[in-house]
């Protein structure tokens, strides 16, 4: 317990308490439904257990992306690729491991197998990101953006185009892979959704804690130094290329973990969430929450997902004939507004405004008191 408290020691205790309380409270309300209270009904279908699980999963992914983009300053427009790799590795090996690769039925049926696959997927994503990252991360700015964009599109096409082996197909084209089993620990199944909700948030809060510890450490400072000035970081002995590749690999590992969690949540995966649009959505979430902010991750995801659900359910009412594609317009507008008014994202931007407002309040009181004297 002491060790556990130390894990969270580096971070804003009030923030942790608040977030944990919200998670527990919403979970309890959803399960117990005191006096018939129901988020989904009240919010017109915007706040659902389903959405809240997605927020947890994407928070895991975004913490990784924020480390790569916000802290280390390396643009990644292909992050959904690693999210997708995690999802597809979990999907393929837990749903079709026997028929495709001859994994024995008893292994497939064991509760450890999906967990093993999840970690194997993370290891694979990490390695892939590291190997690809070494050459790509030499590029800067627009060139890096283009290279990661290309990577994302290639991986997406691999998902979509089936990767045929011996007449059988692996990724299932547009249909994807279904029949993914639920996660279990021994006999305890992490399902129905209320159980999965607590599991997903446990992982998300843990990942946030790890991220916050990391940024306030030797490694984290080296990463931020790379963002601040590459030449100065080098001059202080920071192996810039190695740190970039490492943080890219870490971002990929977390994306892959999120992907696996997504696969076991949905019980089916299809290629579309891992397309360029998926990567773009991650970047929008990250910018809205605040790129250089671990707290920004859950905020950014929440805002975008609620907005998305809201648009999905209301857009047709507001604009007849509007399709899902019209969400993109709102993302664009939102991004522009955020960039103009809160370029550091909602969390950091709001904190700075708050501090400035407080400071002004102090100054005014000081002035008025000075006037009295």
């Amino acid at each position, binding site marked *: 317990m002491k060790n556990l408290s130390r894990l969270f020691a580096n971070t804003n205790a009030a923030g942790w308490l608040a977030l944990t309380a919200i998670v527990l409270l919403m979970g309890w309300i959803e399960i117990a439904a005191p006096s018939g209270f129901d988020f989904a009904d009240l919010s017109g279908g915007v706040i659902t257990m389903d959405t809240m699980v997605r927020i947890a999963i994407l928070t895991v992914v975004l913490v990784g992306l924020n480390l790569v983009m916000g802290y280390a300053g390396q643009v990644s427009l292909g992050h959904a690729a690693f999210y997708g790799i995690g999802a597809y590795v979990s999907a393929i090996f837990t749903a079709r491991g026997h028929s495709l690769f001859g994994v024995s039925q008893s292994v497939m049926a064991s509760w450890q197998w999906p967990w093993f696959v999840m970690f194997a997927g993370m290891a694979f994503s990490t390695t892939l990101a590291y190997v690809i990252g070494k050459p790509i991360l030499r590029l800067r700015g627009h060139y890096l953006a283009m290279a990661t964009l290309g990577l994302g599109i290639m991986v997406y096409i691999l998902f979509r185009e089936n990767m045929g082996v011996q007449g059988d197909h692996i990724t299932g084209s547009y249909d994807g892979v279904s029949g993914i089993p639920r996660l279990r620990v021994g006999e305890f199944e992490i399902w129905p959704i209320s159980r999965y909700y607590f599991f997903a948030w446990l992982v998300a809060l843990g990942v946030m804690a790890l991220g916050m510890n990391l940024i306030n450490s030797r490694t984290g400072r080296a990463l931020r130094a790379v963002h601040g000035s590459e030449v*100065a*970081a080098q001059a202080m002995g920071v192996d810039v290329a190695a740190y970039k590749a490492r943080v890219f690999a870490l971002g990929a590992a977390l994306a892959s973990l999120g992907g696996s969690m997504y696969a076991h949540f949905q019980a089916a995966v299809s290629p579309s969430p891992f397309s360029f649009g998926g990567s773009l959505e991650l970047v929008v979430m990250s910018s809205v929450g605040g790129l*250089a902010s671990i707290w920004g991750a859950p905020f950014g995801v929440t805002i975008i997902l609620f907005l998305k659900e809201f648009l999905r359910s209301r857009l047709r009412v507001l604009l007849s004939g509007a399709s899902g594609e019209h969400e993109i317009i709102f993302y664009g507008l939102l991004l522009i507004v955020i960039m103009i008014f809160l370029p550091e994202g909602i969390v950091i931007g709001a904190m700075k405004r708050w501090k400035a407002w407080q400071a002004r309040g102090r100054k005014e009181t000081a002035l008025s008191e000075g006037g009295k004297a």
Partner: protein
Amino acid sequence: MTGDQSPMLSVCGVYKEFGGLMAVNGVSFNIPAGKVTALIGPNGAGKTTLFNLVTGHHSVTRGEIRFGGGRIDGLAPHEIAAKGIVRTFQNLQIFGNMTALENVMVGLHLQGRSGMLAASLRLKSARMEEEEFHAKARDYLERVNLLSRADEDAGSLPYGEQRRLEIARALAAKPRLLLLDEPAAGLSHPETIALDDLICKLRDDGLTILLVEHDMDLVMGVADKVVVLQYGTKIAEGTPAEVQADANVIQAYLGSDWQAGDA
């Protein structure tokens, strides 16, 4: 005057070509240990290029650079830093996204061991290192009189304080050879005097310093040895007094009225 002991750094016949332009043209000189060596010359003489060659930010076209007996040309900047050559920058390279204290803590990077895993899990080793780094970084800030600014955003500090912060950050990296690239640029007169004192104090502590500087008062006051470059070529080398008396230097660079002390 320099052959009394083995040099800390020797630059031997170094050339640097940028697309047909010879920015550094066969320059050789030694930096004696425990002394302040100044590199001077008009704008475009190749001083900063030479600096970048020593620190590995540029690669040498031809020639050798030796440090403590081993060749360092061809090494990456972070490897050269690990050997003990640490620099500041003419156009400030402060980490504006961090506090002053954190900037100095990046300077301590090479003295740390803890990696990603230990840091994320806040293992005991990482926590102890972190405490030690905090204390050390505060010491270095104190040395340049910036302790009161420790928790402020480095990017919002005034210019002169950012210059001092760069020096604190460089000192934190425990240099054997400290390269200062125009440390007085943009400083007020009192700030320059304080810098002068700081450099002398560091030299008295046994640090070897290479200084690129335009401020002649500063150079002549603190340097034990002066190397003069013009158009990428060394035109004079010696004590400040010798260089001041050198006909080439007077004619080519300092100007005839320099000895009157106007420059």
